[in-house]
């Protein structure tokens, strides 16, 4: 098991190298002269030359890449032009907000999509099956920012059930002392249930928006994979041996059907991390996505580059976890590897 994990870890290395090269190249194709741009409108030729030197732009591409990698190794992603703060500290302080939102959305999606997909497969052709099919097709067609705004209109403006969609907490509350950075967990650690309720209320709408978006591929895959498994010989044998429907479906079919679903999760994460940016903008969520959007609008490039790199590294890590999980669920993968 451990050897497998290590072997898989090694395969991540070329991917990470690729990611670093691409994020480096993204800055090099910046239109115009970055030095002129960083110097601002009131620049003289001397100040531009100074900035070029301080940015290292007078060196060869290989040297610049080397400096970039050394900076990365020291955890330096440059400074934000707008705030003057190091990009790393900004990203680190905002990451828990994004992570809490994304994981919350994913958990809702899985909790709904997997039972729905299983039911649709077991009762093929029933209304559950049709619901599943509509959800799966409609879900991928919904622009996530549009779903978010619709939910805000219905549940905040019309019904008044949800709080104003402005960030992680209402202004009347102060954030719990930071342990994990997840308000839901931190407020429980602090024993403040009122705060837990408040942060949960803020999280529901953006979480539901992300869930609706990521439901579709999971439900579709669960259904397809369950259908294939239910038609297999070993399920027929299990049924013929007189095992109860519950044992057949949950013990035999479900575990085998989960494998393709776990693989799909990799793709779902790709969508989810992208959709996160849009949802954060709609709900004024103070995560790394809205940080990147603000920087994009202000043409502040270092934060965008740091953001793209962080997201890519997280995505690579998530895919690694999925692969390891795959080995845990399916012993055959372990044997073959």
């Amino acid at each position, binding site marked *: 098991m451990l050897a497998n994990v290590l072997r898989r870890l090694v395969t991540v290395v070329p991917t990470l190298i*690729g990611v670093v090269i691409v994020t480096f190249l993204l800055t090099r*194709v910046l239109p115009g002269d970055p030095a002129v741009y960083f110097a601002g409108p009131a620049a003289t030729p001397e100040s531009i030359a100074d900035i070029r030197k301080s940015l290292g732009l007078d060196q060869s591409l290989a040297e610049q890449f080397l400096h970039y990698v050394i900076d990365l190794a020291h955890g330096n992603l440059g400074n934000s032009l707008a705030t003057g703060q190091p990009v790393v500290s900004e990203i680190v302080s905002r990451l828990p907000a994004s992570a809490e939102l994304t994981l919350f959305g994913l958990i809702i999606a899985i909790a709904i999509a997997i039972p729905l997909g299983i039911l649709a497969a077991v009762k093929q052709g029933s209304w559950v099956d049709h619901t599943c099919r509509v959800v799966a097709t409609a879900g991928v067609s919904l622009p996530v920012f*549009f779903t978010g705004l619709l939910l805000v209109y219905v549940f905040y403006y019309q019904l008044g059930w949800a709080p104003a969609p402005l960030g992680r907490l209402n202004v009347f509350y102060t954030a719990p002392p930071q342990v994990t950075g997840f308000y839901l967990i931190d407020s429980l650690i602090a024993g403040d249930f009122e705060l837990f309720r408040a942060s949960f209320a803020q999280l529901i709408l953006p979480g539901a928006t992300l869930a609706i978006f990521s439901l579709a591929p999971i439900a579709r895959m669960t259904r397809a994979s369950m259908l294939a498994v239910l038609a297999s010989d070993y399920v027929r044998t299990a049924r013929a041996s007189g095992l109860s429907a519950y044992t057949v479906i949950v013990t035999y079919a479900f575990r085998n059907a989960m494998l393709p679903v776990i693989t799909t999760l990799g793709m779902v994460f790709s969508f989810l991390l992208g959709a996160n940016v849009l949802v954060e903008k709609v709900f004024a969520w103070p995560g790394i996505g809205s940080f990147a959007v603000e920087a994009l609008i202000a043409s502040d490039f270092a934060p965008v580059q740091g953001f793209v790199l962080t*997201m890519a590294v997280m995505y690579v890590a998530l895919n690694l976890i999925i692969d390891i999980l795959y080995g845990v669920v399916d012993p055959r993968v372990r044997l073959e590897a």
Partner: protein
Amino acid sequence: MTDIAATTRPAAGLAALIRHSRYVIGENPVTGLAFGLFVLILIAALLGPWIVPYDPLASDTAAALAPPSAAHLFGTDQLGRDIFSRVVAATRLDFTIAVASVVLVFLMGGLAGVAAGYFGGWTDRIVSRIADTIMAFPLFVLAMGIVAALGNTVQNIVLATAIINFPLYARVARAEANIRREAGFVEAARLSGNGEWRILTFQILPNVFPLMVVQMSLTMGYAILNAAGLSFIGLGVRAPTPEWGIMVAEGAANIFSGEWWIAFFPGAALMIAVFCFNLLGDGMRDIVDPRRRT
């Protein structure tokens, strides 16, 4: 993966293809509906600016923020612009962005993939490595990064959307070319003295083409969503231009004060367009590749 047009004589093949398509569509009326919607979108994209009741850019502050009515079907926005006219006029830009990016990735990914699958070796290694590296990024995030780096223009949105779809096309084309590399008809062509490039162009490409067309219609919806998402966060399309993503962004603040129609109609148009392309893509796949029918 049976290619009907290739296995029968051309004229009879076309007739058979039409008959087969009619059969598949008849069996799945949803595909028919999607096709109808597609024609509607096409008309809006082609004739949009001439059939709308108002100038999509003309503001009329006296009629600002009017709810949907007989005069203004979808209501008006903060500047009194008619939302119906803007939604219809926006079809052209959104459709053009999607088509352009899909055609671009078809050329880039399709050719690279076919070459990788057919030649193998270094070509394959380079193309696969590029595809893997792109896949290592969350795709929308990469698109943001590309547009930010190349500059905030509509052309770069097209390019970014094409790049993030590259791995999908390259992989399908590579797999299809790879299985045909040693096929009988390819061997025959090789034995009769055709060069590798000639075989690639006249034997392999025509066989991979139908599947790439399916891939194009399957990714059209995603391309529209992606472009609208980018313009929603303020990239690419500039303010007065009618475009669905930016129109939703413009109406987002008004949701809080109850003027839902400003963001709702462009958002709904976007949703219907994507829905239509997704259904159409599934339908196309059923026609070309019956084994993957669900």
